[in-house]
């Protein structure tokens, strides 16, 4: 009897070790996927992708920066569909202020993004409305503002902005945001708190986390980060039209999910999800474009590839109910 118990626990230990190994592998799967996809496209396009890496990457910066904020939101179990409108509004602010001074424009963009984030946060946290309802409403609302502000002409920024459009600056900004995000997430209590809120908000609250304050601030932070991304956007684009930032939210969602992020957040998220996901998204997109498919065919392939990737990467064990 005693013996049996012992072997039982040993077995169990092994099984658990196996399980944790499995989850390790699962976490590595998107990275492997990224590498494979990258190689496949390079072979198919005669390594043109490799040769033009800086061009391919130039589309990743805004998505990746904005995804960092959304990553935090999703970690704690929320959603944000207003990101595109935030980028649009913040870009307009950056454009307008850039005529006065560039640093002011950056600060203004961040402030505008943070303000919209605060509005999201207010309705979500203080009025207890589901985050996707709130953010879909604000997405609509601010899209209206963008259209209004661009009715007579696109909002153009100062001509000086273009001087900032260098790969070095964009890379630096992205890396800075990512590194700060990573350090915060991984090496301070901030990350643990976020994960705890995502994994069990009530228990998190009873462990002394000011969950409401935290949730509110994260929405503000995500808004601010996207407001900063607006600067990177504007130095390249130079102006904002009524569709500025359109569908950024969907891109971010797809990117994060491709990166292996569980949509319900919680303890299983990894910071790599942002980087791997954004890169995977861009590589897939650029790769398919380079292959020279027609739009329809490309979209068909995109849809299938996306579903296949998610079906393979998704960690269903941790989700008991999949909504």
């Amino acid at each position: 009897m005693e013996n049996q118990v012992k072997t039982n626990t040993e077995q169990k230990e092994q099984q658990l070790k196996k399980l944790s190994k499995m989850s390790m592998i699962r976490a590595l799967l998107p990275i492997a996927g990224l590498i494979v996809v990258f190689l496949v496209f390079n072979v198919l396009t005669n390594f043109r992708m490799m040769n033009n890496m800086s061009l391919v990457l130039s589309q990743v910066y805004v998505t990746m920066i904005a995804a960092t904020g959304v990553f935090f939101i999703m970690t704690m179990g929320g959603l944000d569909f207003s990101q595109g409108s935030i980028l649009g509004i913040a870009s307009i602010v950056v454009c307008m202020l850039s005529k006065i001074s560039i640093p002011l424009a950056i600060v203004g963009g961040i402030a505008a993004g943070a303000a919209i984030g605060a509005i999201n946060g207010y309705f979500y946290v203080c009025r207890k409305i589901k985050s996707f309802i709130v953010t879909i409403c604000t997405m609509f609302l601010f899209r209206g503002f963008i259209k209004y502000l661009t009715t007579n002409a696109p909002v153009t920024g100062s001509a000086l902005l273009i001087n900032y459009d260098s790969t070095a600056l964009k890379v630096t900004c992205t890396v800075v945001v990512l590194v700060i995000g990573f350090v915060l997430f991984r090496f301070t209590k901030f990350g643990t708190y976020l994960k705890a809120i995502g994994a069990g908000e009530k228990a998190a609250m009873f462990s002394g986390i000011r969950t409401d304050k935290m949730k509110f601030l994260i929405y503000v932070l995500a808004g601010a980060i996207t407001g900063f991304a607006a600067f990177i956007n504007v130095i390249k684009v130079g102006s904002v039209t009524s569709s500025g930032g359109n569908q950024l939210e969907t891109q971010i969602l797809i990117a994060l999910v491709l990166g292996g992020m569980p949509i319900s957040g919680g303890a299983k998220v990894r910071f790599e999800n942002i980087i791997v996901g954004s890169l995977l998204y861009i590589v897939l997109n650029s790769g398919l474009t380079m292959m020279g498919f027609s739009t329809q065919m490309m979209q068909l392939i995109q849809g299938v590839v996306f579903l296949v990737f998610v079906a393979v990467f998704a960690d269903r064990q941790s989700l008991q109910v999949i909504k």
Partner: protein
Amino acid sequence: MGSKKLSGSTKGYLILLGLVVLSWGIFKVLSPHNFGSAANMLNYFQASLIATVGAVGFYFVMVMGMFDFSIGANIMLSAIVGCVFATKFNLGYVGLIAGCIICGAIVGVLNGIFYVKLRIPSMIVTTGLALIYESVANYIAGGVEQTLPANLRMFGQMPGDIILAVLACVAAYIFLNYTKIGTYTYAIGSNEFVAKNMGIDVNKYKVLAFILSGAFLGVMAILTISYGSSMVAVTGMASMSRNFVPTMGCFFGLAFKKYGMPLQAIVIGEFVINIIFFGFIALGAPTAIQDVITGLALLIIITLTTKVTKGEIVK
């Protein structure tokens, strides 16, 4: 004094009718000449019907806690298929109705099956599938707008549109209140585990909800193309912009679920949004501001109907 304990649905109706009267009153005062006559109101109501039908169907999916990003793609694809059936295959109204509804339902089946079988969150699955539907719609349409000839546009005007929409809403009402599907929809939405233990085939009913929703979106497609007369197959997720109006209607339904009158709330809610929308047009406000108003109005109405309970967990 006496009305201290109003029944839930009475309260709900009072709130909604109050909103109708309030929004009508405000704009009538501000713009008495070109707003709010009985004929105008009928027009506004008609304009609200299209989204109402979609929202009413989508409610089944939403109540179960799932989401659908392929609404717009579904409407687009169904409208194109219906139009092709009606015109290219010369099937007339039969083709239009059958084409749209069957196509919508098939899209629903696909959404449901992929969601259930792949076990991926519905939000993600439907995003991926929306890409595919758009592309398929484009292959069918071949880059030409599909135009419904004037003699097939009965559902774009009085009384055809009202009849179709009323039929659809009644059907939804019956499904929700007088069939097992309705009960099980709420059961699954409330607690999937318990529902499963009660012997409910959760997956089957999830797929059914998607099919229902899809078929109603098919009806919405009929109304849409009959109203606008043509449909073009866009790509690059541009169809997503069609998602939001039905979704917002659904939010009304969710907000008023606790009063026991979700479908009615969707109907009246969409009407209110349209009253406000046309009110602003009558005032000559720029169109862009109307999006702002729509978003804001919805947010405020939901805020007013949501009771804030401290410590409640909302995701």
